[in-house]
């Protein structure tokens, strides 16, 4: 049994492409070409070169000594926060912009929640000299002002999503509507392992550089490619998909996925999709999503804009359903505390998304000789105002 995608574009029963006919030609063009293009030696060479010289890869696998001592286990941090633009998101946008160029596209659109994917997209568009339009919920624009400014400085046009709840899911809707209206010249750079096939697989492949590097780096440090546990936070799930990718079918390695419980899973203000979601269709993918009994998609809540999504990528829905991954929900408070703890034990201020993954150590006890790799998916600069408000700094 494989936990990776099958030839029909499904992970188990999740995935597929539930799209209006208007998007069929675009999605079909991608489906026919994404593997062919991304496996082409000249593509790989260009991709790897940019990851090395522009992004700064490989990102370090850092043994967090003081954090390990505190929890009496061996914790490694995969430092995606050290990437150019401050998170793992750029791995995917580099891949997709190169793909878009080879497909002859002259205009890029993207959705963004916290603004990290928007910044990563605006960055690669500036790098390639391609027009860039980023959709962002009106509410997120207000709470992520520094990233909005960064996108503008990079030359992108930021368009507020005014529909629905005016957050990430609506920004995604608006981006899809833009694509329907501009089907020929435009490529949509989806930022996570969500959306219609082939997006979940395509984004996972571009993020798979993370687990590829973990294997090599862990071998050097511990003499084995296999950690006992992999831990990553999951909103849509792209940093998690990258962390798990080369280990999906290696069941010697345990997988932990961390969702945002918000103010508590049962509080009515949560984004813990695996607990609160039911099977359905969101943004063209059959997966788990938070919805009413009548099938209307509901609004999630998390202090972290990057985890504030009512669905989860189909890969993760399948990891949950099959029991391959253990899902843990972490509240706002637990995450904030873990973020402060990492800052003071290791001198690393993590993004609030990442802080959720770090809070697992208060939830679960590991053995002293367990080797644990946590994806430190982003840095906390963008969240400074949130930390300031929360801790009254």
């Amino acid at each position, binding site marked *: 049994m494989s936990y990776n995608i099958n030839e029909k574009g499904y992970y188990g029963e999740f995935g597929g492409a*539930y*799209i209006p006919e208007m998007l069929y030609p675009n999605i079909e063009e991608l489906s026919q070409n994404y593997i062919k293009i991304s496996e082409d030696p000249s593509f790989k060479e260009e991709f790897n070169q940019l990851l090395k010289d522009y992004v700064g890869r490989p990102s370090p696998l850092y043994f967090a000594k003081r954090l390990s001592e505190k929890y009496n286990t061996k914790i490694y941090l995969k430092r995606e926060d050290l990437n150019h633009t401050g998170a793992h998101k750029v791995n995917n946008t580099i891949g997709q912009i190169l793909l878009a160029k080879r497909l002859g596209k002259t205009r890029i659109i993207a959705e963004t929640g916290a603004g990290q994917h928007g910044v990563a997209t605006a960055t690669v568009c500036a790098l390639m000299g391609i027009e860039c339009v980023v959709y962002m919920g009106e509410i997120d624009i207000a709470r992520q002002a520094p990233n909005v400014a960064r996108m503008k400085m990079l030359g992108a046009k930021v368009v507020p999503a005014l529909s629905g709840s005016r957050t990430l899911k609506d920004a995604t809707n608006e981006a899809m509507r833009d694509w329907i209206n501009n089907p020929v010249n435009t490529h949509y750079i989806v930022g996570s392992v969500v959306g219609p096939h082939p997006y979940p697989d395509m984004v996972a492949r571009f993020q798979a550089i993370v687990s590829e590097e973990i294997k090599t780096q862990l071998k050097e440090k511990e003499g084995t490619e296999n950690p006992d546990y992999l831990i990553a936070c999951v909103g849509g799930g792209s940093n998690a998909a990258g962390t798990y990718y080369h280990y999906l079918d290696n069941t010697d390695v345990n997988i932990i996925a961390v969702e945002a419980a918000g103010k508590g899973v049962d509080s009515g203000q949560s984004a813990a999709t695996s607990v609160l979601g039911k099977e359905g269709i969101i943004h063209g993918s059959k997966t788990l999503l938070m*919805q009413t009994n009548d099938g209307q998609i509901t609004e999630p809540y998390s202090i972290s804009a990057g985890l504030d999504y009512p669905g989860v990528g189909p890969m993760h829905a399948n990891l949950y359903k099959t029991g391959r991954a253990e899902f843990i929900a972490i509240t706002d408070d637990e995450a904030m505390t873990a973020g402060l703890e990492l800052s003071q034990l290791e001198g690393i201020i993590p993004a609030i998304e990442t802080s959720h993954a770090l809070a697992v150590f208060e939830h679960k006890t590991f053995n002293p000789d367990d080797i644990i790799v946590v994806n430190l998916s982003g840095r906390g600069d963008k969240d400074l105002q949130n930390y300031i408000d929360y801790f009254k700094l």
Partner: protein
Amino acid sequence: MTNRINKKLQEDKKLLSIYFTAGYPNIDDTVTTIQNLEKNGVDMIEIGLPFSDPLADGPTIQASSTQALKNGMTSELLFEQLKDIRKTVSIPLIIMGYFNPMLQYGVDAFCKKCQEIGIDGLIIPDLPVDVYHSDYKSIFESYGLINIFLITPQTSDERIRFIDSVSDGFIYMVSSASTTGAKSGFGDEQEAYFTRIANMKLNNPQIVGFGISNSDTFTQATKYAKGAIIGSAFIKHVTNNGVDTIDQFVKTII
């Protein structure tokens, strides 16, 4: 029994179909809207089941959907409102909605309800032809429902032939690469597209939707096609004037 859609398509006239959002502007407007549309000579009706995230719709239908949901519209309530509709209305009725609410209701249960009420067909923009074909076709057919598929100017000839081969009733011809209500008026591109499709001599008649808002665009759209669908322009009318003046709107078209 021949489906009402197929019977209607045999009439020697250009068909006017109207889309409206159920439960909009007011929750109890659904039945009145349908009755007034039939009374004023509309040939076919698409009853929009509102959805929180209507991907293929522009601002007008998004707003009417949001309001209808706020008004309390659900699949269950729509079926309740429509339970006696066939006592007063005889033109074809189609439910148009996104797939997730139907999936949550249960596709079989949803189709069964449609048959009980006297719904003739469904339009589900985000249920792709191939998934319908492999997973749901037999359910729809067992309840006598026609599932209508869309084509667009970007759809290849090969795919149009395929869609034609699996279609019943009519083909919903989206007039331009757009969401609903996004563009008004037709240009050379539409003319070329309409001609191209007419020349393909498809088995199923075509009804044009998206971009039709008045008598001129209705005439242009039906030059080659069997009929046309008006959605956003009608929604705007009832937003401003309510459902008692539907006659005024229909008179401006036919």
